């Protein structure tokens, strides 16, 4: 502990490799799983998975839940969870529709939508931290609350968004760059942003500590409540953005638009190796996890299985990936 030995020269070579494997075990695991699944699809359906069309489809559909999953990863690392993001998607779009219809400006509508998402996240965060209820319970409640509010506010109606297609915002959120859907570039940019926030910013440092050891966080003076609230707000904003992309590309808003994404978003995070107990997780893992989850449905059809297999294969992939993480973790740490 306090010996007087001079600093020793650390041996290079093998031990360096071991150290590398130890600290990257999780990332290596998810990469192997990702490549294995991909290889399985290529072998099973070479014509589909060796052409670019399927990847262009993934590039558009995966970001809808992957963007939320990036920030959900940070919430889960901090020891919380947010099950309400699918309803934030709906409610924030109500903010868009109302503002757009009232002002005639799509851009103002976009701002209102993101702000509504942030407010929903703030609401979650405040209830979790100030009243002190576990986020699992709170966000089950707000999942119903936000979805219910969305339904009530628009009276259950859907709104065509065809008139938005000429706007700048539409091009930015649902257009294409060349042949590649712009959603994919948003996903890449936000993944980089989330990675920097998590690994190179105070917020991420604090999120890891809060999730790993809340008591230590308190003793070391980390602003626990502020950290948790900020992360919920980020998920809210990401949900709103993803919802806008989704609604724009469908040119339609319907109040239960987000409902399909709950399990996909959560699965992406956990397949990516993030611990449900907090303190552990990576953006890289969630990014690959999202594409694994996003590819399964199309992959099953392409391989020639009936769509009925989808659920079973989802389950198998999720369990396999999570098991790999558990085994690697025990082996290397």
């Amino acid at each position: 502990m306090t010996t007087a030995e001079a600093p020793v020269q650390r041996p290079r070579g093998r031990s360096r490799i071991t150290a590398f494997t130890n600290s990257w075990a999780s990332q290596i695991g998810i990469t192997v799983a990702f490549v294995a699944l991909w290889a399985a699809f290529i072998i099973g359906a070479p014509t589909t998975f060796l052409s670019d069309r399927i990847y262009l489809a993934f590039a558009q559909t995966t970001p809808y839940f992957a963007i939320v999953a990036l920030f959900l990863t940070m919430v889960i690392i901090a020891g919380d969870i947010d099950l309400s993001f699918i309803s934030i998607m709906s409610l924030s779009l109500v903010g868009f529709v109302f503002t757009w219809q009232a002002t005639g400006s799509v851009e103002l509508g976009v701002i209102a939508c993101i702000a509504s998402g942030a407010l929903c996240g703030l609401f979650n965060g405040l209830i979790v931290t100030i009243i002190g209820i576990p986020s699992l319970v709170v966000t089950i409640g707000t999942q119903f609350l936000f979805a219910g509010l969305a339904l009530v506010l628009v009276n259950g109606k859907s709104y065509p968004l065809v008139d938005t297609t000429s706007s700048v915002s539409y091009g930015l959120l649902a257009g294409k760059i060349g042949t590649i859907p712009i959603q994919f570039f948003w996903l890449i940019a936000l993944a980089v942003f989330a990675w920097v926030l998590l690994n190179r910013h105070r917020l991420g440092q604090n999120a890891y500590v809060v999730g790993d050891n809340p008591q230590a966080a308190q003793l070391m003076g980390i602003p626990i409540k502020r950290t948790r609230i900020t992360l919920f707000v980020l998920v809210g904003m990401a949900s709103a953005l993803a919802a806008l992309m989704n609604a724009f590309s469908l040119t339609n808003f319907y109040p239960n638009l987000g409902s399909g994404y709950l399990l996909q978003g959560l699965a992406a995070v956990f397949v990516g190796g993030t611990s449900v107990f907090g303190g552990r997780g990576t953006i890289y893992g969630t990014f690959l996890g999202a594409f694994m989850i996003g590819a399964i449905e199309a992959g099953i059809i392409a391989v020639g299985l009936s769509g009925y297999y989808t659920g079973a294969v989802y389950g198998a992939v999720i369990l396999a990936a999570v098991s790999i993480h558990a085994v690697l973790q025990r082996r290397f740490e």
Partner: protein
Amino acid sequence: MSADERASSRQPTLPTDPVLAALEPAASAPAQGVKRLELRHVSKSFGGVRVLQDVSLELATGEVVGLLGDNGAGKSTLIKIITGVHQPDEGEIYFGGQRVTGMDVQRARALGVETVFQERALADQLPLWRNIFMGRPVAGPLGFLKVGEMRRSTEELMGESMGFTSAILTPNTNVKGLSGGERQGLAIVRALHFRAEIVILDEPTMGLSLKETEKLLHFVEGIRAAGKSAIFIDHNIFHVYSVSDRIVLLDRGRVAGQFVTSRYSLAELMDIMREVAATGAYTENERYRNKEELPQPTTGTGEERS
């Protein structure tokens, strides 16, 4: 051990211990004997239970105060008030003679209070460097971390101060794999890396081997030698007695007595502790009355007991 032996073992020595290399020299270097910390009439309740009642405590520069008391005596609460985790309901806190209000952990750390906590306060799944800089990362104005700098500092501290020589350990190693002694070393180095003026050790010998405990006690001696102050909390009276200048005995949320260790033998102290445990107070026992001209804060450099 005899009083002479103890006195000689406490001769102020230069900080040869490399851990103390991490100690910055006292920035403002106040004169010896200045009250580094003073609590006046501090009370604290949790949910109607009075955990601390009218507690006053002084800590001089270069002094090591041992805090003894049974479970529930209020030791941990007292520590958490000094470190800003809890705010007192009543009473005043002075640092270097200046009253401080609105204490929180950040404020306490800015005032030079560093704590080695009983729970170790480490995040298991995070690498060493994130633990060293927990709650106080090196960051730019927008909050972006200077990771390279923190990794380098950690690597230096590992070699020089923690004596971590295993090739497997790098600044990126997770804390999970460390031994009890290594974890305690990490917690201590973390406390000292940031210009500590008052080091608080909360049950630091818990879970340590004999050899590690010896090193720890030696380290506490080093804190004194470097002119810093320390509060040492331990269940084990032998450990507390061997390194403290003064022992403060807490019982059921009150200060039951204060004893300059050079004036009491270990046997006498244990006698008093038994009495306090039985009666809840130390009642001017006949046998020790002649010693009760104290307590006064001592300078703690060891002269007064030679």
